[in-house]
């Protein structure tokens, strides 16, 4: 057990993966000598050499496309996209090639690629540095999409993602990179499957589903609600595709109330799928319609406005009040 930041837990996860399997290679912009703009790959090139930890030309499609070629050759590339907003030049390779190759070839070609993407806002950054593009990927059959919210998951799930024979888009909550926590780097990888959601806090009144950077916010909301005598069951999805809906379903059957929160825009966000799927499965257990607390349907705004865009404890608690039928911001609101 060691106390590590989330970023350091990722580094240690990469280190383990590089040690465990000679076919693992790390590649991306500035990941080598610089150690990545967030230093997640710090020291790896020094220790594993430039053949295994490669600085690549500045071209995201090139990075992902050559990684696909490396997969054909038996490698397990771990590529870094520098920021969320820079994944789009690689979108074609991810959607038309990475996601479809195994299906296309009826299993002949495996693409054990891991795509690491620091994502999310709250760091006061300029445009394209704060986005949450996960829904583009969760709508893409053939990709697995996961995220982490704490150092232990960061470490273990990254290793699981790399070990996984499917392509995995691994979203890293960048504003939690400096969150510290205990990490057992010897924990067996199959302890908790990567696909499994986690119940973070128990509660009887409302199920609060979230993932990545907002898990900490959700827990804060649960603590605040507890003082009001409201029990919130916080679920950390961890896997965004496939979603462990069984765990959500079980909780909602118990609480009868569901709030979903994520930073991404609402329209067609992952929250829509969860609300729709849970409604399909637990309609008659729901006391109120599922509520979503998300980024608005606007491009990610300038830094000085992001506090309004991003869900926070207050907006979550307002939605909790709503699903509990208590006084809330929409009480008496006329659209």
């Amino acid at each position, binding site marked *: 057990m060691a106390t590590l930041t989330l970023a350091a837990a990722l580094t240690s996860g990469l280190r383990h993966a590089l040690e465990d399997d000679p076919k693992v*290679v790390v590649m991306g912009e500035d990941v080598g000598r610089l150690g990545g703009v967030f230093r997640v790959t710090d020291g790896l090139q020094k220790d594993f050499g430039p*053949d295994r930890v490669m600085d*690549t*030309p500045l*071209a995201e*499609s*090139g990075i*992902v*496309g*050559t*990684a*696909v*070629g*490396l*997969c*054909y*050759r*038996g*490698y397990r590339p771990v590529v870094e996209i520098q920021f969320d907003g820079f994944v789009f*030049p690689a979108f*074609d*390779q991810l959607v*038309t*090639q990475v996601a*479809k190759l*195994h*299906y*296309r*070839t*009826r*299993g*002949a*070609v*495996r693409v054990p690629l891991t795509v690491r993407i620091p994502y999310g806002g709250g760091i006061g950054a300029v445009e394209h540095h704060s986005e949450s593009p996960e829904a583009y990927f969760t709508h893409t*059959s*053939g990709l*697995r999409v996961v995220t982490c919210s704490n150092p232990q998951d960061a470490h273990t799930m990254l290793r699981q993602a790399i070990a996984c*024979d*499917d392509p995995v888009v691994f979203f890293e909550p960048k504003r939690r990179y400096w969150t510290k926590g205990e990490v057992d780097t010897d924990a067996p990888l199959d302890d908790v499957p990567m*696909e499994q959601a986690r119940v973070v806090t128990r509660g009887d009144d409302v199920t609060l589903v979230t993932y990545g950077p907002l898990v900490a916010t959700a827990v804060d909301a649960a603590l605040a609600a507890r003082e009001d005598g409201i029990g919130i069951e916080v679920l950390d999805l961890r896997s965004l*595709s*496939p*979603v*462990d*809906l*069984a765990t959500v379903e079980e909780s909602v059957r118990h609480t009868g109330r569901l709030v979903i929160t994520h930073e991404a825009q609402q329209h067609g966000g992952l929250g829509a799928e969860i609300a729709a799927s849970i409604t399909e499965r637990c309609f008659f257990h729901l006391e109120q319609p599922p509520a979503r607390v998300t980024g608005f349907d606007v491009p990610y705004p300038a830094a000085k406005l992001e506090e309004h865009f991003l869900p926070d404890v207050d907006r979550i608690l307002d939605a909790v009040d709503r699903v509990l039928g208590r006084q809330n911001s929409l009480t008496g609101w006329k659209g």
Partner: protein
Amino acid sequence: MGRRSLAVVPWPDIGQWCLELHKSDGAAMERNMLRQDVSRTAVRTSADHRVPVTDRTPQEPPLRVSPGAEPAGPPDDVLQLLTPEGVRRSHADLDDWVADVGDDELAALYEDMVVVRRLDLEATALQRQGELGLWPPLLGQEAAQVGSARALRRDDFVFSSYRENAVAYCRGVDLTDLVRVWRGTTASGWDPFAVGMATPTIIIGAQTLHATGYAMGCVKDGADSVAVAYFGDGATSEGDVNEAMVFAATFRAPVVFFCQNNQFAISEPVGLVAVRPLADRAPGFGIPSLRVDGNDVLAVTAATRIALDRARRGEGPTFIEAVTYRRGPHTTSDDPTRYVDPAVAEEWCAKDPILRVERLLESRGRLTAELTAAVTEHADAAAAEMRRGCLGLEAPPPLSVFDHVYTAPTSWLERQKSQYAAYLAMFEEA
């Protein structure tokens, strides 16, 4: 069906132009021969334009080729060993590379080309008869594909586009597997690892990055295998192809960029994507290139071997532009009468890649009745086998639509599958 395909190709008079290297370049060429080794002199780098293929007459800055213009006329600076008339010309840079291609080997290449043309026409026929949904004919490109593919080793790996069915044939792809995807029974035809060739990539240019990455892997493995990326003239304008060149140059990847310039991207003439010869693009990326008569199976073989040799010796990527002509439609859905100039098309018929080999063999007394009979028989048998295989291809079982999305089942998808099974069962019950 049973007839040899060559017989149906119209054969107009041969025009006056020829594919020889410009006479005026001869001196520069010889100068070069003295101080560089063969594999180097044949390639063009922008640092040294005195190698034969690039020593063009100085010219004004390139004139704009306006959109919709006619495809460029006959290439005047392509590497060539075999003229349309069937005359074997010698070329100091290339001869050594095909020194082992004697009459037998030539006959084998001839046979390959006849067979793939036969298969191609058969597939077109199958499409016309409603047995295939679509087919992208390679008519006219037999030499480019056979000449390059036959130069490869078993342990090399091909990443191609959709039109490289002759390459697939040479790699040993089962004939039924060739048509599988065009019949719509599966999204791709064969196991790439069984034949050393990925199944076609339809997204234009995407496979060039895969080839480059594969080649980067070969370097890591210390293997001297080579990756070959096949793509078209149109593809060169896609970002991916250019990024592939960047990566290949940076990592000195053993990859051959084999561009079949068949003059068209669907209806668009090559002049719309390139105001200069495509082979001129690569040197700026630090990648030597060769511009070769793509209808000359010997020159294509030589060029490919030069590129492969460079790659195996750790000298990195090479770009080959095989100048050829798409004699058929883009695909069976296309209507080339809307944009093809029949006069130009006819000119290219005169440059048929098979006929010139036939003429060469004839001039050597090797185009015997036995040979043509054997070749025809082989072609017919292959076509019949492919047709049989094609007609035997059935729609896969309904629930297989859920298979292979991931390497292991997911609860999410298993649920959908199970629900759909229940849905289908409803009709069985009824």
